[in-house]
């Protein structure tokens, strides 16, 4: 009896340890290592021995104007672009759902931007908005406007980044909202039609509330993803002019891989993680309140 139990125990370890080790090596170790590093001053170039500095890195971050600047830039890009993505994406999904003529063609073309690598999208956008060679400025001068410095004027550069984000990620919203629309029962809408409910009221009172849980999820995914934006910014503006379009991730990248200031970068990454968690939790709590009214 005792032996059987002993053998069972051995097998238990055989099954358990590989999984635990994988989690440890792949997830926990880097996370803990980064956390430890975030409390140290480490420089690779020029190499300095690690020195424990406590929360000094975090204090530096919170008192850095550049951090708050990148925080503001990221927030503006994320909130404005996600709002536009949702509104435009939902509108497109509605149009496709109601089978406008040529819906099949649109369905494919609308989804294309999503399949492109963000770097390619940014390169294309950079050409389109180029001050001298870009077609946008060509058109602008054709209409009598002067040359507009799209990528070198801070507000315009942020606007261009938002445009590119919207262009690339609206299809994602369209795709999910279209799937949601197609899963709604037809009879409910037929009942509303027979009851002479006008189209916009059908949308406001029936479609929108029924798709609310899906909308919450879609916006959540886009918010979290949006906060990580780096490639588009890196290619399009490089964070410039100055640091006017620098996002949180790009700021961390510059600290880590241009200045090799690893302790500070780790602290920055953790700050970033905390911000995303706070924003996500606050958003979900707010969404819960809205959904409770309907569910």
């Amino acid at each position, binding site marked *: 009896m005792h032996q059987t139990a002993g053998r069972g125990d051995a097998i238990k370890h055989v099954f358990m340890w590989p999984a635990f080790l994988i989690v440890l090596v792949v997830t926990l170790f880097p996370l803990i290592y980064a956390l430890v590093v975030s409390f140290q001053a480490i420089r690779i170039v020029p190499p300095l021995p690690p020195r424990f500095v406590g929360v000094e890195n975090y204090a530096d971050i919170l008192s850095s104007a550049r951090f708050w600047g990148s925080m503001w830039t990221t927030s503006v890009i994320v909130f404005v672009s996600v709002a536009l993505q949702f509104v435009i994406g939902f509108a497109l999904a509605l149009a496709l759902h109601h089978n406008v003529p040529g819906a099949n063609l649109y369905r494919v073309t609308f989804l294309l931007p999503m399949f492109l690598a963000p770097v390619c999208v940014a390169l294309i956008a950079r050409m389109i908005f180029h001050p001298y060679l870009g077609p946008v400025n060509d058109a602008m001068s054709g209409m009598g406007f002067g040359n507009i410095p799209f990528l070198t004027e801070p507000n315009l550069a942020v606007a261009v980044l938002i445009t590119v984000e919207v262009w690339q990620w609206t299809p994602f919203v369209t795709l999910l909202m279209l799937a949601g629309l197609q899963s709604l029962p037809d*009879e409910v809408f*037929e009942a*509303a*039609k*027979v009851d*002479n*409910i006008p189209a916009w009221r059908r949308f406001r*009172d029936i479609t929108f*509330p*029924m798709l609310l849980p899906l909308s919450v999820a879609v916006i959540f995914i886009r918010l979290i993803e949006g906060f990580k934006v780096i490639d588009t910014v890196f290619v399009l503006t490089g964070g410039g002019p100055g640091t006017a379009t620098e996002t949180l991730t790009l700021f961390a990248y510059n600290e880590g891989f241009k200045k090799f200031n690893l302790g500070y970068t780790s602290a920055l990454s953790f700050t970033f993680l905390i911000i995303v968690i706070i924003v996500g939790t606050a958003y979900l709590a707010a969404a819960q309140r809205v959904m409770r009214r309907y569910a």
Partner: protein
Amino acid sequence: MAHVELSQLTKAFGAVTVIPPLDLDIEAGEFLVLVGPSGCGKTTTLRMLAGLETASSGTISIAGQDVTDTRPGERDCAMVFQNYALYPHMSVRDNIGYAMRVHGAAPAEIEARVGEAAELLGLTPYLDRKPKNLSGGQRQRVAIGRALVRQPQVFLFDEPLSNLDAKLRVEMRTEIKLLQRRLGTTTVYVTHDQVEAMTMADRVVVMHAGRIEQAADPITLYERPANRFVANFIGSPAMNFLSARIEGGAVHVGGQRLPLDPADAARLGDRTSVAFGIRPEHMRQAEAEAALSFTPEVVEPLGAHTLLLGHVGEEKVVAQVDPRFPAAPGEPCTVPVDMTQAHFFDPETDIRL
């Protein structure tokens, strides 16, 4: 003039015509039931009436107004769907009052009408619940409530009881019928259940392959079916059909001779080939001396009566006899046949003779 008129109405989906030209007049206040097997076009007809399907040709008019091309909402019909089609995120109160609210009725009036409908349908305790917290019967009552607060010209029911269990179906059947009688609203009701059709309707329209086979009150349908399809569809268990010939005032079937009612004999004359229809329940007791012998293969006692299932010649026959009728599987027996209830159909055209 009829309240609802369908004239030369057709519907085609692509090249497939599901409704050949159809004419139907519905009187004001009438409870009309469209009944038929799946795919007979009854639901399509109802949906065309509601405006959810466009008619391929022909016209529909309600209260003297041509509504063929009118949007569904402007026909003043209210519809109850098979799967209830309630707004899942609204309470019972909001579901019932929603259309009134959208159309700008005064809150006090909405409250009064919703309360009245809820009272009528026994929904008062559930007004603040969401549909997902209701049983099937309650949900269907909400759907009916939503239709009746609108006080429409016409009620349309699309198989509203199909999703309910048998007991509830019988209860709701009575409730809907009583409600319609009390409100006096013209009603078109679609079902595939002939018992529902017979029990509820003022007039039953039996449909088959998009055509109206017969439109008549339930008793006429049962006693004088216009053709073999109707005879077979109405009544349970279904009517027996036996190939027979008529000679010398009697029906000859499978070597047996069943004397006819003199009036029928005079009307029908001698015929070499005829479809002889007799309902199982008319093989129970008879004034006439006719009787049919066969060997039951299965005996099904149901309590109130017993079914004997067997063959006469090559053809199946079912007799519904008294529970104490002396019969056993495999032993020949003779059942009386009420020849005054016999039906005869032309074997070629299936039309009643």
